[in-house]
């Protein structure tokens, strides 16, 4: 009989379903094949014109019917597809999930295509006044719902029959990890036996790209798109904006075993720490990221020597990769040089609100498949960052525990510790 409670006497949280969509494809099978083959999903942007843009590449998801229909509809579809895969794998009723929903998704705004179309449907007044005039004559709720922050989760709650008020959250680029953390906490508190945690982001619009570009956050290596995302390399010059989704069905180990579910992995610990240094830059000593990693290890009841692999945040920005190296080498000490640490973002780009969930999904698969996906485009190592980044080629390895990092604008730092086996 397995131990059902963790080192702090809380219910152990198991993963019984995993779903994922990225620019590499729909579903775990396609994604895993591409990821372990070192395939990049980064490509020239075709969704909108790239005139005047410094960055003309992305990891957008272009192959869904909603890919051209705006951030809100695409984000919903991404979330729905990943959640459907996860719920089906868990063997649960996909219309009556019976637990709460935690959705990490991008902040919503009225899409420009809608703004243009509303504005040009009338001739009276100008600017915002005209938009408001047109708005109050609108029939139907379709446009309205794309501007409500709770609407995507509301639709998902209808679709999957989740319980109660669904939570939509944003912790910037750590959002996906936070959605999982909220699910873990709800199960540990005994509020539910299972939770559906989703991170989804279909918000790679022209305006989103321009905003990140104005902050000098994006790679401008446009010529060979698949080579642009190069975490931990000397010539890294920014992240690649991308889309995707990841979904996990979380369940108390007790409930999962009781219904005979297959245990895909264990969500062993979560840790977070906010940074008060700057809106986009981390404290130079890395102390908040260090504290987040340590909090996750502590929550998991694991020592520094008990992590087999790190799924890095690894954005390919000069700042992040340097800070992540600093914080990991501080926590893991000399061992850091011999620990495998790879960045999925080298292949899928930065899926923003989805990243933490997508990368948790890949972390769990890394343990199940005993294969570590590589960090591709590692041709010019940064001499200041001495890490085993699993360069360019996948590696076969027994992996029993993973640390997955997520760091975001606004001082957000969230880390997850996952394990293959319950104890």
């Amino acid at each position, binding site marked *: 009989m397995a131990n059902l409670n963790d080192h702090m006497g809380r219910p152990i949280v198991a993963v019984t379903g995993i779903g994922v969509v990225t620019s590499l494809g729909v579903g775990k099978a396609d994604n895993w094949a591409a990821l372990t083959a070192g395939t990049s999903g980064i490509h020239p942007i075709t969704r909108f014109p790239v005139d*005047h843009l410094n960055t003309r590449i992305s990891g957008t998801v272009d192959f869904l019917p909603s890919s051209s229909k705006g951030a809100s509809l695409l984000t919903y579809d991404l979330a729905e597809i990943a959640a459907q895969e996860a719920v089906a794998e868990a063997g649960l009723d996909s219309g009556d999930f019976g637990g709460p929903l935690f959705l990490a998704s991008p902040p919503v705004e009225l899409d420009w295509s809608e703004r*243009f179309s509303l504005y040009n449907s009338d001739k009276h007044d100008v600017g915002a006044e005209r938009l*408001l005039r047109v708005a109050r004559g609108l029939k139907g709720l379709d446009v309205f719902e794309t501007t409500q922050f709770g609407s995507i989760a509301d639709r998902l709650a209808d679709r999957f029959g989740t319980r109660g*008020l669904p939570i939509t959250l944003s*912790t910037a680029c750590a959002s996906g990890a936070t959605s999982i953390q909220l699910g873990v906490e709800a199960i540990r508190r005994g509020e539910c036996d299972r939770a559906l945690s989703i991170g989804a982001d279909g918000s790679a619009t*022209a305006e989103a790209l321009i905003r990140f570009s104005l902050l000098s956050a994006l790679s401008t290596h446009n010529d060979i798109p698949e080579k642009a995302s190069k975490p931990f390399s000397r010539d890294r010059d920014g992240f690649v904006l991308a889309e995707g989704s990841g979904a996990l069905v979380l369940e108390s180990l007790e409930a999962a075993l009781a219904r005979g579910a297959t245990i895909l992995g264990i969500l062993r610990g979560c840790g977070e720490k906010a940074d*008060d240094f700057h809106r986009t830059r981390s404290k130079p000593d890395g102390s908040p990221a260090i504290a987040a990693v340590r909090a996750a290890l502590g929550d998991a009841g694991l020592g520094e020597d008990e992590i087999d692999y790190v799924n890095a945040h690894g954005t390919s920005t000069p700042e992040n990769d340097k800070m992540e190296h600093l914080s990991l080498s501080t926590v893991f000490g000399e061992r850091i040089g011999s620990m495998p640490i790879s960045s999925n973002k080298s292949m899928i780009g930065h899926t923003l609100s989805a990243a933490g969930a997508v990368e948790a999904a890949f972390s769990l698969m890394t343990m199940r498949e005993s294969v570590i996906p590589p960090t591709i485009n590692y041709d010019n190592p940064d001499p200041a960052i001495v890490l085993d980044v699993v360069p360019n080629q996948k590696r076969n390895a027994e992996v029993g525990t993973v640390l997955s990092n997520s760091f975001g*604008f*606004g001082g957000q730092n969230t880390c997850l510790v996952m394990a293959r086996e319950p104890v």
Partner: protein
Amino acid sequence: MSRHDVVISGIGLVSSLGEGPDAHWRKLVHPGLEPVLEAARFSPYTVHPLPEIDWNLQIAKRGDQRQMETWQRLGTYAAGMALDDAGIKGNDDLCTTMDMVVAAGGGERDEAVDADILAASESRNDRDVLLNEKLTTELRPTLFLAQLSNLLAGNISIVHKVTGSSRTFMGEEGAGVAAVETAAARIRSGQSTHILVGGAFQTEHSDMLLGYELAGYLHRGPWRPVWQRQGLDGGGVVTGSGGAFLVLEQREHAISRGRKIYAELGPVVSGRAIRRQGELDAEIAALLSQAALPNGELLTISGASGAHAATAAEKSALDANPAIAARGFSTLTGHMKEAQFPFAVALAALAVERKAAYPAFDAATEKPFNGIPRTVLATAIGYHQFEGMALVNAA
């Protein structure tokens, strides 16, 4: 009473009525208080505008103020007031271990840039190119951060040094409900000892009005109290700028610091009625029943928005219980979206602490309450979706 009870040990409030719990109390207990209204600027819509605020009082650095649009400044300001009130501000040990859940919407876009692009779109067919052309040259680079949802929390970390954890919930009133509910659950379970929770809403921006008006939710024409807008022009919502932050604390933690306790936060309940299927009435009734209302007269601080369907449903549920004396504070503050539920809880806590009820905010509709409120109900029935309630008890 138990040591893991959740108590309210700090309150920060801003609305058109002023700032701070004391100022709000003084005004709100004044029978027949007139609302502060701005009817011209956004005509045909009326809003309750922000009062004069000296941002320096809570955001010392001008550089920090410049990095935020009004919504973030407002939230950071209200959060600072709550921290001050709880005796936490400036205390490194307490701030660095303090958790935070912020209910946020989005910030303010650059209205001039948007208007310019829209005007140009009338004579251009290549609108996507137009967009690139204008946005790459006219957007202020840091505006993105000044309007980004999780950067209200980010600014609270930077300005007030709250760094235990930082989470932002999105989704109109429901985000405020979930923020308070989750924060309380974390304290009750021993996951946290003290949490900053709240939100802010700055309505004096066309996009914030548009967010309601795309479904015709805004009231038009002369202002009326929140319960008296059915059947009039528009959708019934009159918005207001404001913010509400609470310091929630484990009882033992607050007592050990020797702090004043406003009230205990009792059950917080939430729900998601599928309204198009007519579930709202039943959902409100279910929440009232889950909240385990005490016997006897019950003062109720209602966050009703004025939105016709939701407000009618809430009113009929409250009217059906003869013990309930409701106070719809949107009459005096306007609807503050994500901040609405934290604001309701704060007003409930104030009444409990001052051992007195608010007079009717709308004497024609609301009935008197004569006793001492030992327990007060706070509600937020979303104008469009999501519902929540909390019971606030004498400490």
